[in-house]
């Protein structure tokens, strides 16, 4: 335990870090409510929803509504796939099987290969095969190479702490493997499954490096934002940032509440 002065210093460092972490986002959230004549920085020139309104006018930026729809659909697809695939693989990885080591290293490699290279590789693959890249095919696969390893690592952490005797008890009472999974294992690990879903959704919702060269003609929201950063010089960019952050916070909040409810139901 450090001394009193050191603890104060560490506390101050932590406070400063929080300010560093949240200050900028908070600033652009405030600035997104600039009045119609306001600029990119303070002072605030009145308070309005003008820039949020501008988001939905087609001439201000690209077709944001369509981009948002695509992004949410893609995030939903990625979330569902990530949950199911990493859950299944996590169950299998509890025992060693032929090929398990190779598959494990491949999964870790998927985290290490830079996003842009995955994007480029898939882009080239579709190009050479003369397939049409699209958000629901190439970009979908590109995002899975990022979300699945996270999902699987969470499953590892979950099953390291999992009490096998519940499952054995179920089997002793005559449950089939499917029954013991559905009625015993899944309810116990449900909060972590919500966690995997949270990873899947937010990682997909904010991803741009992996979709950059794989999304084809239909942009996702982060790609629209990336394009806007060089061309748009009004607070409309901040308004878009506020909307995007709000969606993220809604999802995080929903997931945290979901986990709490599930824990409560189990009475722990």
């Amino acid at each position, binding site marked *: *335990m*450090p001394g009193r002065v050191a*603890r104060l210093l*560490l*506390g101050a*460092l*932590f406070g400063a*870090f*929080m300010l560093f*972490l*949240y*200050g*900028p*986002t908070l600033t*652009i959230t405030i*600035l997104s409510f600039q009045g119609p004549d306001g600029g*990119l*920085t*303070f002072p605030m020139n009145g308070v309005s929803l003008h820039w949020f309104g501008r988001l939905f006018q087609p001439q201000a930026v690209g077709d944001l509504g369509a981009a948002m729809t695509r992004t949410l659909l893609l995030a939903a697809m990625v979330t569902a796939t990530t949950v*199911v*695939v*990493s859950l*299944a*693989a996590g169950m*299998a990885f509890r025992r060693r099987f032929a090929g*398990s080591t190779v*598959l494990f290293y*491949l*999964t870790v490699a*998927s*985290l*290490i*290969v*830079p996003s*842009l*290279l*995955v994007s*480029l*590789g898939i*882009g*080239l693959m579709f190009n050479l095969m003369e397939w049409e890249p699209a958000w629901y095919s190439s970009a979908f696969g*590109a995002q899975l*190479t990022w979300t*699945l390893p996270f999902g699987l690592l969470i499953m*590892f952490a979950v099953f390291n702490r999992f009490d096998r005797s519940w499952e054995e008890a179920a089997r002793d009472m005559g449950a089939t*493997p499917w029954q013991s999974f559905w009625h015993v294992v899944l309810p116990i690990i449900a909060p972590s499954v919500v966690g995997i879903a*949270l990873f899947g959704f*937010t990682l997909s*919702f*904010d991803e*741009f*490096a992996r979709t950059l060269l794989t999304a084809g003609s239909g942009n996702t929201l*982060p790609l629209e*934002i990336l394009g806007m*950063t060089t061309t748009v010089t009004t607070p409309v*960019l901040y308004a878009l*940032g506020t909307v995007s*952050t709000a969606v*993220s916070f809604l999802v*995080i909040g929903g997931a945290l509440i979901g986990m709490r409810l599930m824990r409560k139901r189990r009475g722990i």
Partner: protein
Amino acid sequence: MTRLFPWIQTAPLALVLAVFLLVPVGMLVVVSFYDYDAFSLIPAFVLTNYQELFTSPVTWQTYLKTIYFAGITWAVTLGIGFWIAYHLAFVVQNATLRMVLFILCTVPFWTSNLIRMIAWVPFLGRNGILNSTLIGMGAIEQPLEFLLFSDFSVILAFVHLYTLFMVVPIFNTMMRIDRRLLEAARDAGAGFWQTLWCVILPLTKPGIGIGSIFVVVLVMGDFATVRLMSGGQSASVGLMISNQYGAMQYPAAAANAVGLLLMVLLVVAAMLRIVDIRREL
């Protein structure tokens, strides 16, 4: 039938990784040997792409710059991340408060990196908050130009984006340290720094290793942060690749991709030699 279970359960994972990771990376290697002209790819086996890569001083500078960004970001995020994790694990005593503070540290991970970069613009710009505050205080007369669109702002954004990748694994390993070891160290007469150096640091090494791998890999593969925060005045290998892709110079981009991948793998391998992270999994 049950013997087939593991393969059925992992088949989707294996399929996704094969189609969207293995084949594409193989594709990068193949295309890096292709020839090309202004209009099309020419399947061939030529070494010109690598020759250009190795003989161009600009390319060398870009690789060095990428290593420079990764090195500085690594040092700063480790410095900050270690003490933030230390504070959470050893100074904060209340378990609920610790959890709340930890979640606060991780929430930005779930929000958009692009937005978090853009959020620095009103702070650092020529007429931004920092400059007007400093001028208002009389500390400076002219606005500081180096704040935005410089190496400084690039590194600042990297630190802002990636410090939590250090905090989380280091905090995890610290929480697993048996508190009795710290008491034993104190009983044996060790001071704060001795305990830190001889007990906590060695036991935290795997967490530091994982955090370092994340940070270094993310920075080395980056293109957007460098483009946005340097305003086009600095370069990284990732940015060079995305520019070459934009100019349809696919084989050149692929050769650079192979170069970048090798660089990343070398760094990761070096780190794995220093710390054994398999114990962590």
